[in-house]
């Protein structure tokens, strides 16, 4: 009699715990899924989804499956904030991994801070996200940042035989910060250079003709652009029609990932082959076995023989989260936040570490000059180099 009661009691006590273990770990992902930014945002969310499926197949994290809730943030800070809050309040997510633009990132960071939710930003680059006055225990970035990007580009332009340089960037945090970093560093490593023109179209501009004309009137010899995503497609089409690339002999560097396979693929023959650009990843990079394996898996997952280069950031974001949860052996926000500091993760692009100083990972990017390659129906970067960001991080 007693034994049975004790057995039942034990089962009753254990049952909720088992149910607790089965409950998935919900992760919210606000990401632009519509419009020109979706060119980058959509594959990023798919990369995260692929990682989640892979890890769940292996049993999940701490015995619990990961569940990714993706929401369209429309690349709008207001919408991203709204989605993030609903994810936290309605869907009860325990973590946030997401946002793309440098307007969304800082806005959602505030939400994360107030709700004490760990927020890993895989894409927004503005330095302001982790600046000392904006830093808080729950914000982390596995994206590169505008300081790294601007300086990396400056080093490349410094090697060109040009003295008159112009910039074309969107008038918001990302465009402003990366251009500033570029100009400052370029002037340092090549003092003779002159910034002859700077144009600031609004984010989302569809007609770049007036800006292009104004810029070319100043006769630049090289152009630094941070126009990104689907917007770069529109800008470069218009610029090409106006003869910009010929006029500057293709001394053009497009940060904001102008040389990603997505972009070159979607533009096909319209792409201005010969410009320099960067990319977070490239399926043709193939330096390590780990990367080759990742690309093979991604190709299968996306059913695309030339898989996207943006999936990697979603993937890495989730990787860091999962590893941090494992290291903390808990899903408690404070413990996971602590575990993320100085955490090194073996990602498909190599080991990355989030440093304690500003919660920033040492994420560099691939840079290269685009050329036509007989193997592929679109341009690729060749040779393509991974620029180590360490020397650019203050």
């Amino acid at each position, binding site marked *: 009699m007693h034994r049975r009661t004790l057995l039942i009691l034990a089962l009753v006590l254990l049952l909720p715990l088992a149910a607790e273990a089965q409950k998935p770990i919900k992760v919210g992902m606000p990401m632009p899924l519509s*419009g020109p930014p979706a060119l980058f945002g959509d594959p990023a969310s798919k990369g995260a989804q692929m990682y989640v499926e892979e890890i769940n197949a292996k049993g999940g994290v701490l015995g619990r499956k990961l569940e990714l809730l993706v929401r369209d943030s429309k690349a709008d800070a207001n919408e991203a904030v709204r989605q993030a809050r609903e994810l936290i309040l309605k869907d009860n997510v325990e973590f946030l991994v997401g946002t793309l633009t440098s307007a969304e990132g800082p806005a959602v960071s505030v939400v994360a801070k107030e709700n004490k939710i760990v927020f890993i930003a895989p894409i927004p680059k503005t330095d302001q996200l982790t600046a000392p006055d904006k830093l808080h225990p729950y914000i982390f970035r596995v994206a590169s940042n505008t300081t790294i990007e601007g300086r990396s580009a400056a080093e490349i332009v410094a090697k060109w035989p040009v003295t008159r340089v112009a910039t074309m960037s969107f008038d918001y945090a990302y465009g402003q910060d990366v251009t500033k970093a570029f100009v400052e560093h370029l002037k340092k490593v090549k003092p003779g250079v002159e910034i002859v023109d700077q144009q600031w179209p609004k984010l989302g501009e569809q007609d770049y003709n*007036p800006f292009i004309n104004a810029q070319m009137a100043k006769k630049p010899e090289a152009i630094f652009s941070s126009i990104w995503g689907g917007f770069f497609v529109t800008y470069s089409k218009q610029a090409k029609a106006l003869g910009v690339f010929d006029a500057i002999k293709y001394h053009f560097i497009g940060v904001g990932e102008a040389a990603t396979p997505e972009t070159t693929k979607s533009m096909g023959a319209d792409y201005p082959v010969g410009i320099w650009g960067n990319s977070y990843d490239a399926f043709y990079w193939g330096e390590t076995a780990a990367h080759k394996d990742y690309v093979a898996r991604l190709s299968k997952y996306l059913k695309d023989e030339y898989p996207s280069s943006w999936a990697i950031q979603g993937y890495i974001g989730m990787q860091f989260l999962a590893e941090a949860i494992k290291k903390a052996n808990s899903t408690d926000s404070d413990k996971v936040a602590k575990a993320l500091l100085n955490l090194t993760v073996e990602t498909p692009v190599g080991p990355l570490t989030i440093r304690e100083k500003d919660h920033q990972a040492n994420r560099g990017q691939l840079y290269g000059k685009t050329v036509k390659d007989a193997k592929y129906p679109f341009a690729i970067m060749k040779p393509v180099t991974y620029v180590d960001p360490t020397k650019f991080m203050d």
Partner: protein
Amino acid sequence: MPDFSFIFAQSISGLTAAMFLFLIAAGLSLIFGVLRVLNFAHGTFYMLGAYAAFQFMQWLGPGRGRFWLAALGAAAAIALLGGLVERFLFRHLYGAEELYQLLFTYALVLVLGDAAKMLWGTQQKSVSAPPELGGKALSLFGATIPYYNLFIILLGPVIALGFWLTLQRTRAGRFIRAAALDRETLGALGVNVDALYTWVFVLASFLGGLGGALISPMRATTPGMDTEIIVEAFVVVVIGGLGSFWGTFFGALIYGQVLSFGILFFPRFSIFAVFALMAAVLILRPWGLLGRPLK
């Protein structure tokens, strides 16, 4: 002092933008002039025209002449859509309050805009310029003018002239002008005003769809382009004069140049300049450049 080739280049880009806007605004002005309704959905017809052109290009494949076929096909498809919307839905609201008619056109924006997302997804689409015109440019006064831009600049006035001649010289045109002035009397004279209204809608939608199709090689075909363009079309129509045809044409020209040179003189606030101009016109001369003075 900026040199002449720059000023010329800037005015060319202003002209190009103006001609696209004219195509959309002309339809908007026509619907307002005759049906007395501000059609919010006109921007959506423009967007659907661009998507339809993309779709036709997918079906036809690249090659000589394909783009023109696709553009005309797209415009025709949107014209048909406009006609159906008017005939089966909008017609029943003519007796209702103006506000409800406006609300209907806005509801159309929501429905058709999402329909585009359902059919073509949320990623932006790209259309290549026709091979006959793409890739080549004219060098004039030191400025580079792509052939396609030139084509658009020449097409605008041609369509404007053709339109105007239709309105002035043909019987149908006279009926349209009469309907704009006095619908009842026209009906009493035995003209089938219902059918006339449908045809006006069809024509306006054709222009809007054509505008979208023709702009697709130059800009991105993407969700959200409808809400962006409709406000610009409103500005044009207000500046030129609601209901005035040539007013729309000149309004578009002015708008294009203000936007183009705005970035020179007030780079940060060129958007502001456009709306300030709209407000100024409404305050000082509400009927616009060439509209009919208000009572």
